[in-house]
């Protein structure tokens, strides 16, 4: 296999969500003595980017995206073994996530958590019906970059507003960004309560999270 063929095989393995094949390609790259970073950046990462595009366009299913990312993660782990520690991929950021107290709608929040993990975030998922104090405590404990909340009801979206205040009172608001989402939530609401971002769906949540974590 030429290097170019190997890079294409890496991309294909991720798009096909084939973990076995992805690992095989990674081991082959190691045995050929190729630059692991180049294989990650020009082989596997383009595969994941294509997966993201296919999902966005509605041609790929969410479970396939998850499998593809697992294939990617497994292959990268093999390649990183031959890299010095400081060159290994860092997480994209750390996120505390949960559905506001009084609200049990957690399916959308679960999808956001999954996709954030797919894109390399460390996610602390607090679950549903989460007391506001638990968000504050988790942010303090983990030093997370971002706290994402989900509210699907007119009765619980007020919790997102209250959380802004509580984070301020705890002296944490300057070090953590906030993102809000859920069926009843809008950009208007996010602006009104002073949240840093609103995301309409899980893909947008990832894009906003990447933006916020870098900023």
């Amino acid at each position, binding site marked *: 296999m030429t290097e170019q063929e190997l890079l294409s095989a890496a991309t294909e393995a991720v798009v096909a969500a084939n973990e076995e094949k992805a690992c095989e390609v990674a081991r082959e790259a190691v045995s050929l003595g190729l630059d692991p970073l180049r294989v990650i950046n020009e082989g596997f990462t383009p595969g994941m980017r294509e997966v993201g595009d296919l999902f966005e366009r*509605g*041609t790929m299913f969410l479970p396939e995206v998850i499998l593809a990312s697992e294939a990617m993660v497994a292959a990268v782990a093999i390649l990183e073994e031959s890299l010095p520690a400081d060159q290994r991929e860092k997480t994209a950021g750390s996120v505390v996530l949960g559905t506001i107290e009084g609200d*049990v709608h957690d*399916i959308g929040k679960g999808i956001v958590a999954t996709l954030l993990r797919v894109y390399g975030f460390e996610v602390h998922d607090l679950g549903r019906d989460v007391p506001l104090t638990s968000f504050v405590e988790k942010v303090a404990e983990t030093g997370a970059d971002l706290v994402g909340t989900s509210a699907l009801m007119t009765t619980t979206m007020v919790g997102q507003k209250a959380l802004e205040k509580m984070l301020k009172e705890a002296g944490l608001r300057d070090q953590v960004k906030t993102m809000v989402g859920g069926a*009843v939530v809008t950009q208007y609401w996010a602006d009104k309560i002073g949240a840093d971002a609103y995301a309409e*769906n899980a893909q947008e949540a990832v894009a906003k999270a990447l933006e916020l974590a870098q900023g």
Partner: protein
Amino acid sequence: MPSSESHDTDRPSSPRWGIKALERAELEALHQATLHVLWHAGVKVEDPPAVDIFEAAGATIERRGTHALVRLPASLVEESIRSAPGTFTLHGRDPKHNFLVRPGATGFTAGYGEHVMVIDIHTGEVRPTVKQDLADITRIQDNLEHVSFAERAACSGDQYPAVQAVHNYDAMVRNTSKHVFLSAGGGDNAKAIVAMAEAVAGGREKLRERPIVTCLVSPTSPLSLVTECTSSMIAAIEGGLNVVFHAMSLSGASSPATPVGVVVQHNAEVLSALVLAQAVRKGVPCIPAFNSTMMDLRRSVAPIGVPELALHGVAGIQLMQYYDLPTWAGACASDSKIPDAQQGYDFTLTAMPAALVGANVIYGIGALESVITFDYAAMIMGAEQAGRIKRIVQGIDLSGLDEAVALIEEVGPGGEYITHDHTFAHMRELSSSSIFDRKARELWERDGSKSAADRAYVEARRILASHEPAPLDDGVTEKLDAILAAREAEARAATA
């Protein structure tokens, strides 16, 4: 013209036209599968008082910190199924709106739960709902012939969040004398709603004799009964109300990706709630609802106007009929954002099977945007469509066979029927239309070439401007005000 209610309630429980999709042996297999799940997987229950009730009833309990895993033995489940009645009355505030739930009776209502957005009836703007919207929608429901009861179709979004549910009842009971369905948002609100219903019904005993409101509670998929659900249920039943178990899983996300798996899990969820309800008050009427739809795993959304909703509903309702339980189907809703062609197709895709399988309550009229947004035109058109669908399930009356043969012979080849007495006697039984257009094109053009939706908005505005619901008895509104104010003060104090 006879009202839909007298149609539904006066007709004997007759064989009706419909779908019989599953055989007895298949239903029994689904039942056994459900019993397996209720024992081996069990149900997660959060609230300790509810766990205690399950335990006292004979369930096996494993307490695990924030919740308990409750396993239900087959004997307990089957005994609960037997103790819940299949026939009972959904009382209207005005008894002329009573609806007798029994095999063969179908009634429609508007709203698929509690919509949070509405297309404004005057400006066409899409905006969050307020208490007045629920009052207006309910007033129209009160007037519509083919709406048999009023479901809470919008939320009082401008009211204090913790007590929006109580405001919802306040808005509804003042604007309809039909039976009301709504959720309570926890035991304390449920108690306030019971107190208000007692004031309206004329006292505690009167409400117990004639419960004029039913509480909707939601089991959470997979297999969980959260505190809000059980505390609302217990308070409502203790207050004399009946309950609806409104489970709604999304196939592929919170339930299996195959219809058979969805039906079994959904059945387990509603039966677990039924066991609790029967343990709180043996014989309390319970209506299991079938609302499970799907997750679109390509778009990460929960669409409602889909074949899966109808498949889950038909199978689930047949199961309830096998148990002699009453039935409720989620249907009529669309994922379209406006009352357009898709909305009409989506409506009928699910409403027709629900009616043909014989669901007692069918809800969802007026629902758009995957049940986020409510629309008045969709409500008016949906109510008319509900009437047409009900006509189909009434089927053909074969007792007229001999008379028809004699008639055909008498008129003979080349004759006509328009002037015959038989036609005169039966012509009022033929369907008619009000919003749906049957006119000749020229007449339609003369009337402005309007779409059905345009005419429906006009009709909704006409009803709002002219219909007066039956008033409450003297002194009742003051009592409602007082109960509402006290509950709101209590809730504000609790969060302060």
